[in-house]
């Protein structure tokens, strides 16, 4: 079983992110359960979305406390709150870049990838919604999902101009991390 925890504010598209990831796993023949947990029921309030993935149907219905992967859509959430709480020993975190954001200390085998997802989104979609760039980065950083599958999911989910923009955002997020990895 693999578990992904997404940190965002209500209205920033975390549910879409979870559903795109869940759908991608579904297309790869795995069982996924993607679900949100809202804090205060209003826009801008911190919230989580989760994806739990397994080779057999997912029955566990609790929230995710010890994720394999963390995706932080809004890095301002890291002020005063540990978004890495419970992250597995070899866990991977994907962070949306923000100037002056404080990255939590990580354990020896954990990895952190920072992606300028909002910047990519502004260029590709025209709005600072970094979700699709982040899932591209997630795929590149973890090798969990194939880029083709993500693009297929985005094509199914979006149409028209938004589709084109989001396809580019996924690709650029993916390539940004792949480049960073080759430099290493």
């Amino acid at each position, binding site marked *: 079983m693999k578990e992904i925890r997404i940190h965002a504010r209500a209205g920033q598209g975390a*549910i879409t992110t*979870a*559903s795109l990831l*869940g*759908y991608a796993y*579904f*297309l790869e023949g795995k*069982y*996924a*359960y*993607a*679900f*949100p*947990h*809202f804090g205060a*029921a209003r826009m801008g309030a911190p919230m989580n979305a989760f994806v739990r993935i397994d080779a057999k*149907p*997912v*029955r*566990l*219905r*609790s*929230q995710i*406390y010890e994720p394999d992967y963390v995706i932080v859509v809004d890095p301002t959430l890291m002020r005063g709150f540990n978004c890495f709480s419970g992250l597995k020993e070899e866990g991977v975190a994907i962070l949306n870049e923000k100037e002056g954001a404080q990255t939590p200390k990580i354990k020896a085998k954990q990895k952190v990838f920072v992606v300028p997802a909002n910047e990519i989104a502004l260029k590709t979609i025209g709005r600072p919604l970094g979700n699709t760039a982040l899932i591209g980065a997630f795929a590149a950083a973890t090798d969990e999902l194939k880029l083709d599958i993500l693009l297929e999911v985005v094509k199914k989910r979006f149409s028209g101009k938004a589709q084109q923009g989001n396809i580019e955002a996924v690709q650029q997020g993916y390539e940004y991390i792949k480049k960073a990895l080759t430099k290493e």
Partner: protein
Amino acid sequence: MKEFLEGSRAVAEAVKLCKPGVISAYPITPQTHIVEELAQMVADGELKSQFINVESEHSAASVVLGALACGVRAFTATSSQGLFYMAEVLFNIAGLRLPLVMTCTNRSISAPINIWNDQQDSVSLRDCGFIQLYAENNQEAVDFHLMAYRISEDKSIMLPTMVCMDGFILTHGMESVDMPEQEKVDKFIASYKALYKLDTANPISMGLLADPDYYLETRFAIQETFKDLLKFIPKVSEEFKSNFGRDYKDCLVEEYYTKDAEKIIVAMGSVCGTIKEVVDELRAKGKKVGLLKIISFRPFPYSRVYEILKDAPRVAVLDKAVSLGAYAPLAVEIKAAFFGKKKSPKVISSFIAGLGGRDITLDSVREVFRKLTQREVSLEFIDLKPELLREEYGE
């Protein structure tokens, strides 16, 4: 065909397959997505129904009552305060023997206001004459809606069904669902033919005054039908299996490693999935534990519960609702199944968890198994925060 769908979307698709002529609803979290999807289907012409917007749940329930009284299949969905606002109409729908199918997306009750999941809403309406089925996952939510129309509209039954699914956990949870095909659904659910209907050409009256000479028999008749349902629901489940391939056995309960179990948890709804995970974990360590999932809370399958639990030494009942000032609602039923019988578990302990969306984790379930000892627990809340209680009492 298997699809990756949000629970609400899956239920809306299932309702669409059942072709209700009238849908009426008033939005309330976490039910909203279901009725939004249906409204969209109607607006797009995919579903030939009349979607009637109303100003309240009381009116939504009244509209579907009227539709059914005129012989038209109907659907509504609600949650929490909305369900309570419908309450008096729901008693009427059952009293009039109208076969409504509705969804209750389970949510807590105010005050304090809380939009998250527990089962206080539908459990509190256990006496309103609706059949109540609780879904563990979105596949069951879909399938139970199909079965609900088949059961409710049968001439031998003519009683409404409430399909209960945990708010957010299922309604907003996306997972793989095998959506039934229209032709098969058409075969499984015949078109609705009312026994009696309001018709200006042949005027009749419904729901008139029943004075003390008549009222008692109306309730007796419903109670008798609920007895019949204990045989009829399994029959429909069998039909469902032969049409769609999925086997819900008697569709009253589901047994999970109960045969040789020394400790069994009894529960309803999505938490059963989490309990199954803990059962697997403890079984792997050689512990004889199991789960009894109650699917049908009304009618309550006392005999099945008796047969399954009579030799189990210890039983824990996990309620996601509370009957303030009394034993927990599901625990009461489980205990009632054994009084005056030859056999009985030595211990039937009662636990309450998950109220107002407090997450029920693997640890919560492990704790229930741990606390299920020789000493019976009459009522205990799991996962309380002691620091909040200190604040409450100003210590």
